[in-house]
């Protein structure tokens, strides 16, 4: 049973560019959450998707947007990249909107130059 998968593993972009990160949830999971983890910090919640809708959002600007597809996979888009967007972006899935347990993927390391 494959766990949460994310692509790409690493990504290098320049300021002002746009980026799209992808996530496939664990089999049987329909809820996807995205987190940003800056170096030396704990993950911070960006937003959560369920039934192809954004259900909750953390304290992140509108430059961060997302999408969930009918097969439950998800994308995170970041526009107008800033140096401060450099971080590990983590996707977590769970088998339901109210389920406590979340399983994390390996993350995508984004570097903005």
């Amino acid at each position, binding site marked *: 049973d494959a766990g949460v998968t994310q692509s790409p593993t690493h990504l290098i972009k320049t300021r002002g560019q746009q980026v799209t990160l992808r996530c496939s949830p664990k089999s049987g999971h329909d809820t996807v959450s995205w987190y940003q983890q800056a170096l030396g*910090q*704990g993950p*911070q919640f960006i937003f959560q998707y369920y039934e192809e809708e954004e259900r909750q959002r953390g304290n992140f600007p509108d430059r961060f947007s997302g999408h969930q597809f009918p097969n439950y996979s998800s994308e995170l888009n970041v526009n107008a990249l800033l140096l401060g967007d450099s971080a590990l972006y983590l996707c977590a899935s769970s088998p339901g909107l*109210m389920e*406590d*347990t*979340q*399983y994390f993927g*390996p*993350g995508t390391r984004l570097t903005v130059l």
Partner: protein
Amino acid sequence: QQQVKQSPQSLIVQKGGISIINCAYENTAFDYFPWYQQFPGKGPALLIAIRPDVSEKKEGRFTISFNKSAKQFSLHIMDSQPGDSATYFCASRFSTPLVFGKGTRLSVIA
């Protein structure tokens, strides 16, 4: 403000010793308290979790102690091994996504 404060920031323990990491939370509505383990270059992996209706939960060498009145919970790693060297995060939630502490870097030395 929903915060989870974690200490210490780093910890060095001898092989076979007990590692103890502490967390304190503010929101009394939190009702789920997991601990995650993260190795360099990897995503966090769920270790063990507890709900406030019990004061302690043990799984193998890992134990969570929970003090509801003090709004604190801790992770104890018994018989610590070099393979336990990683960063540990506490977290909390109540019908919200997880709120994480800043992490504790554990080094277990032989």
